[in-house]
């Protein structure tokens, strides 16, 4: 026994000494930190080509490597030229875009009108099956006028053109790199950071583009570390193993805020979370029923559970989305259980059995539980059915539900990009999960898309918004707040209302 005891003691001693040696390397540095940051991402990028991906994790990376013709100011959301120099509309169907000169891609390929034409044609090519092909669907043809001028022709006027051209998935790729290699694995753009390495499932590293067309970025190296468990990511932020996390859920925000030397940024966002009815089923297709439910839901009670990470506003177009006007806020069905009960009694809905269909992610379960208890109070008989995301999406898309919870992160912050995919009758069977159909609403949304006069667009969107609020195919639960938490040594980070961030202005 004693013979065995000694080696075990030695082993334990070894482990402990290994643990204690090289003092505190996981702790925070006190001297000037290196110009490097590590960001913890809850999942890995699906790919690194803006043409072939459509998820926010991938665009967090591609946004640093590629650039778009236009961009949105992260604070004001005003659209301004980036790779473009200027643009003009000789008529409503023609966009003549002058490009900045002297810019090259990371592989040395010159950035010019040919590159823009190539990228947009790839994005539209049915064989490539780009997931965001719909962004540029209204563009009929792309012409190269000269080296630095590209002309986009549309069939009908396309109002959200600049917002679409600012979208991360409309970023310009190096034609050489795309033809000769796989930009989904080795991205080549014009951006401030150059791709270095991708160990799939583990990390992606980018380094500073020393030949950037503006002043080079301040950060020399950026690492995206995949940390699937959010509480682990918070621990890593606390110990200094990562410097930056974002999209903090309401359940975690208090812990993050209590960490010393960590700054938390909260910005009112463009995401809207809602309760949607299946408008093809009874009694959900009856206005009185939807009104009863709308009066019966106390959004304030729900938002108070979100630890200040939600905005209570019943307008479908949120306060940070183009097309919102202040008076929409007052036009919703404010919580009024008496009115709800009255409507239920008058229309014989008492005891109506309904099933809330919820995916087991984000805050959907929390929403379902709160709505269940609130609707039970007004006399409905509510049960909850939950599913994991992939099965949920398929059932929801098929219209295999009665009432469900979903959200929409509006990545262009333009109201047309909210109302058209989600509530226009063109998209029943795809992204219009509520299967809502109203010709007047459709017309207004169509006009908001086809006008290039921004003031006209705003009015059309507002009018459409009011119709949808009154008809209530959706009941807004809350508008989102985007969050980021980072080491106090990090400066210059601005998270925009769509949740995007550029690392170009960031330093330590």
């Amino acid at each position, binding site marked *: 026994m004693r013979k065995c005891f000694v080696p075990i003691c030695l082993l334990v001693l070894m482990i402990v000494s290994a643990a204690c040696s090289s003092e505190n390397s996981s702790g925070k540095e006190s001297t000037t930190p290196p110009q490097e940051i590590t960001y913890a991402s809850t999942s890995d990028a699906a790919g690194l080509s803006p043409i072939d991906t459509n998820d926010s994790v991938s665009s967090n990376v591609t946004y640093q490597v590629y650039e778009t013709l236009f961009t949105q100011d992260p604070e004001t959301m005003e659209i301004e030229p980036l790779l473009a120099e200027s643009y003009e509309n000789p008529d409503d169907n023609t966009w003549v875009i002058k490009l900045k000169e002297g810019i090259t891609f990371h592989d040395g390929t010159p950035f010019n009108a040919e590159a823009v034409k190539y990228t947009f044609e790839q994005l539209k090519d049915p064989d490539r099956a780009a997931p965001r092909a719909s962004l540029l669907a209204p563009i009929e043809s792309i012409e190269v006028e000269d080296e630095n001028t590209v002309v986009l022709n549309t069939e009908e006027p396309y109002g959200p053109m600049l917002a679409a051209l600012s979208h991360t998935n409309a970023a310009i790729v190096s034609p050489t790199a795309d033809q000769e290699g796989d930009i989904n694995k080795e991205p080549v753009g014009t951006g401030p950071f150059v791709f270095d390495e991708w160990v799939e499932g583990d990390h992606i590293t980018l380094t500073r583009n020393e030949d950037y067309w503006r002043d080079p970025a301040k950060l020399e190296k950026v690492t995206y570390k995949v940390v699937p468990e959010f509480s682990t990511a918070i621990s890593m932020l606390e110990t200094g193993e990562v410097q930056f996390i974002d999209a903090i859920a309401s359940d975690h925000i208090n812990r993050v805020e209590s960490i010393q030397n960590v700054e938390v940024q909260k910005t009112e966002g463009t995401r809207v979370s809602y309760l949607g009815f299946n408008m093809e089923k009874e009694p959900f297709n009856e206005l009185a029923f939807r009104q009863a439910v709308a009066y019966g839901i106390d959004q304030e009670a729900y938002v108070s559970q979100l630890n200040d990470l939600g905005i209570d506003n019943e307008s479908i177009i949120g306060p940070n989305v183009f097309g919102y006007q202040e008076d929409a806020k007052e036009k919703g069905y404010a919580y009024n259980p008496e009115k709800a009960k009255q409507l239920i009694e008058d229309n014989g809905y008492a005891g109506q059995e309904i099933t809330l269909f919820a995916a087991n992610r984000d805050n959907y379960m929390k929403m379902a539980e709160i709505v269940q208890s609130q609707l039970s109070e007004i006399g409905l008989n509510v049960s909850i059915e939950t599913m994991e995301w992939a099965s949920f999406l*398929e059932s929801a898309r098929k219209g295999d539900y009665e009432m469900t919870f979903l959200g929409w992160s509006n990545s262009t912050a333009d109201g047309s990009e909210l109302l058209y995919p989600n509530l226009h009758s063109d998209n029943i069977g795809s992204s219009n999960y509520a299967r809502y159909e109203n010709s007047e609403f459709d017309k207004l949304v169509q006009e908001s898309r086809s006008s290039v006069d921004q003031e006209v667009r705003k009015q059309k969107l507002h009018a459409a918004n009011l119709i949808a609020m009154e008809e209530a195919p959706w009941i807004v639960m809350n508008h989102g707040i985007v969050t980021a938490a980072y080491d106090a040594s990090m400066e210059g980070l601005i998270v925009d209302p769509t949740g995007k961030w550029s690392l170009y202005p960031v330093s330590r």
Partner: protein
Amino acid sequence: MVGLIIRRFLQLLLLLFGISFLVFMSMHLAPGDPATIIGGPNATASDLEAIRENLGLNRPVVVQYFDYLAGVLQGDFGYSYQTNQAVTEAIITRFPATIKLATASMIVAIIIGIVAGMISARKQNSWIDVTSTTFALAGVSIPNFWLGAMLILIFSVNLQILPVGGLNSPFYTVEGMKELILPAITLGTASAALIARMTRSSMLEVIRSDYIRTARAKGVRKHSLIWIHALKNAMIPVITVIGINFGGLLGGTIITEQVFAINGVGRLMIDAIAARDFPIVQGTVLLVAGIFVVVNLVVDIIYALIDPRISY
């Protein structure tokens, strides 16, 4: 012995064929469409159709299966729907992390389990025995994710002596060892508890057997009686437990990999299931099944080495 290996190999082929069929069909017939995941909630019907066409998902399932099988027979396990990475490459990049983690946890489990089990058996019903069986019970009962989170809070966040997550350095370096300690303990505890209980009961049985009494009567020293004569015979069921556990650990340890941000096979599989990335799911399941069969074979061979009465 050679006969055993050949027989097992043939069984393995048959098993893998059966499993590939079951997994393929269950993934394709279960709800959840890979195209809706790739396209996202805002994809239009034509976007989705284009994605399905691109992935070949609009062909009949049986055609897809035989196509897949034909590929597998030529060593082509397909490409990930999500990242277009070759399945074999995806597995090969993740497998080292899983092997490292599984081996380290197994070492922790074997050392703690066998020592605790032996001591418990020798001092049956003493306070040491009671303490060790209580810990064994706790070890099996405590969920991994909770233990992992607690160890991170104590050793990484509060004491700051071990890193929170990731296996970034080679295991033979000090950094690499530090990275392995917490996940190995998290994962090894449950196995340690099982091994301890198995060692204890098996040891108690052997100690009471006739040949031990005879050996004792002949004056064999107590030390060699326990550690040589008794332990060797008591090990057969313990090795079975170790084998099954090790097979399980090599197949990926989803929760521990998740909590400690380790890029292993378990995480690859669970992410693929969530994203309906069929080729990756099939590849990882076949790998896990294959590992189980091989580990069982190795266990059988070890039986014969330990116990001369067993021969094949």
